[in-house]
């Protein structure tokens, strides 16, 4: 019986592997195909795309759409604004999150439990859209970049992850020894805790920065001035608000419709490029961040 069992066990393993690898390959293709299509379409002649000729590789290679975008003030302005919001916003996020996470990681802080409860509570219940909007409005932040930065200054989940990291990865004895040597809490934080926490700081910068780069809803409700539009809002206008009607019925109309179509593909690529270029380099940090987060605090 043993020989037969072994044989069937082996064939079971082989069938299993075959099925598993096939499914895995299918998943890779399903995830990649839409992305590849958009990239190819952005380099193709829009007429061929609209005619359904583009499947996998570009047809009628052209850079017209990219050329148009590079000379379009709106997209550049959006890029510049988003860059500004991302840098300032992430800086504010980091300062606020560290200032909250470190004291709350200290086991000798009186009132720590109560503060943690009050903070965690906000993850499950909050005032909601309308009261928050009225608050931001009454603070005079509408139509300033602060409306995009201050209301989201701390992500509670990130705060909890960072606190857990401080608590579990930095030996308390080290902090005590520093105290005995007369080190103040501020110096302790700046010269001991932060240098020892580079992995989690990197992860948090990435989380916050990608969040700012990709966010559009804050700008949708708080920003009316077109000069302050972040990239995602410019993008929304180009992608979702139909451009077909913008042509004025002259001979160039068909060309304009085609160009507008090409611009859609190209603008998707251009706006996602920074994050996707960064991706291979920072990918393992992201994964680490999720892992740290999953060690419950």
């Amino acid at each position: 019986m043993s020989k037969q069992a072994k044989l069937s066990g082996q064939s079971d393993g082989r069938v299993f592997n075959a099925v598993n690898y096939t499914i895995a390959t299918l998943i890779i293709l399903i995830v990649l195909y839409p992305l590849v299509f958009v990239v190819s379409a952005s380099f193709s002649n829009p007429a061929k795309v609209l005619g359904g000729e583009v499947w996998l590789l570009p047809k009628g290679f052209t850079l017209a759409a990219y050329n148009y975008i590079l000379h379009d003030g709106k997209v550049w302005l959006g890029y510049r604004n988003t860059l500004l919001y991302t840098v300032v916003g992430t800086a504010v996020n980091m300062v606020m999150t560290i200032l909250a996470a470190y004291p709350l990681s200290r086991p000798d802080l009186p009132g720590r439990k109560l503060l943690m409860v009050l903070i965690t509570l906000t993850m499950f219940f909050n005032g909601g859209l309308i009261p928050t909007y009225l608050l931001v409005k009454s603070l005079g932040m509408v139509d300033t970049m602060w409306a995009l930065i201050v209301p989201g200054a701390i992500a509670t989940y990130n705060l909890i992850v960072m606190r857990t990291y401080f608590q579990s990865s930095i030996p308390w004895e080290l902090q005590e020894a520093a105290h005995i040597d007369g080190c103040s809490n501020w110096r302790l934080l700046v010269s001991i805790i932060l240098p020892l926490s580079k992995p989690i700081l990197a992860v948090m910068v990435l989380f916050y920065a990608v969040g700012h780069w990709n966010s559009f809803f804050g700008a949708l409700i708080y920003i009316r001035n077109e000069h302050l539009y972040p990239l995602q809002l410019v993008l929304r206008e180009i992608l979702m608000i139909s451009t077909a009607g913008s042509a004025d019925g002259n001979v160039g109309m068909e060309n304009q419709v085609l160009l507008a179509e090409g611009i859609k593909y190209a603008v998707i690529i251009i706006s996602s490029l920074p994050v996707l270029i960064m991706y291979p380099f920072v990918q393992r940090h992201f994964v680490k961040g999720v892992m740290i987060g999953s060690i419950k605090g």
Partner: protein
Amino acid sequence: MKSAQAQMAAAPPQVRTRRGSGLFTRIAKRYDLYLMLLLPVAWYLIFQYGPMYGLQIAFKNFVASKGIGGSHWAGLEHFTRFFDSYYLGRLLWNTLSINLFSMLIGFPIPILLALIVSEIQNKTFNKVLQNITFIPHFISVVVIVGILTVFLSPTGGPINSLIQGLGGEPIRFMESAGWFKTIFISSNIWQNMGWQSIIYIAALSGINPQLYEAAKMDGASRLRRIWHVSIPGIVPVIVILLILDVGHFMDIGFEKILLMQNNLNSEASDVISTFVYKTGILNGEYSYTAAIGLFNSVINLTLLLLVNRFARKTAETSLW
């Protein structure tokens, strides 16, 4: 192990502080820690608890010039108006069905993906599979909806080209109420399955390999080993994530729904949160929509509490 260390680490200061005189000295000694907390606590009070105070406008007739405190009470008027409205049924059904189907279909898929990943022994292929499935997570909602629009376009989108190639009529996916939920849910899965699988992959790699060896000795096939070793090993993680998901049951993917919505599919895409945005922010009916928002939050919180309690009783795992 880690938590044991943390507990050991936590012990000495407590001994010391107990010897110190009272709460006041303990606080005074660490005044600089409170100084650090000053800004974050102020932020929590203003931007998290401030809106909760502002929620009272749900029971008032908010007039901007009178402010939140000065506006007159309206009792439950806004709630009854919502419950009596003709669109209540549609909003509730869409909100519930989109989220329920999202969870029923979307929740198990990252688990399956993690199982597939963990059964792939070829290291390179394993990494490639993981890294590729993570990519869509980093694409913005606006771009995702943009990709959907061009990918499903009736003119030149590959799906419709395929349908036409097979002799069918092109379908206007993005403008169809019937297709809305399918597109919304499947693109969510496409975007997030890789990212959501990370935690399960981590949990699977933490399972004691001796369990697999023992199962193999007993003649368990690969599938049986998954069923009897892998899955039981990650049940606690599954339960925690399920609870967290339920806690946001009523507000999954609001931004994406808003972007995908148009007049032609609104029958299937009108949900509570988009209604709050349109009627509240765009039309200025603040009190009415604050009430609807509150109703939504209360359902969320209730579901969270119920599921947490249920999980504590049955699976002996819970958030608190």
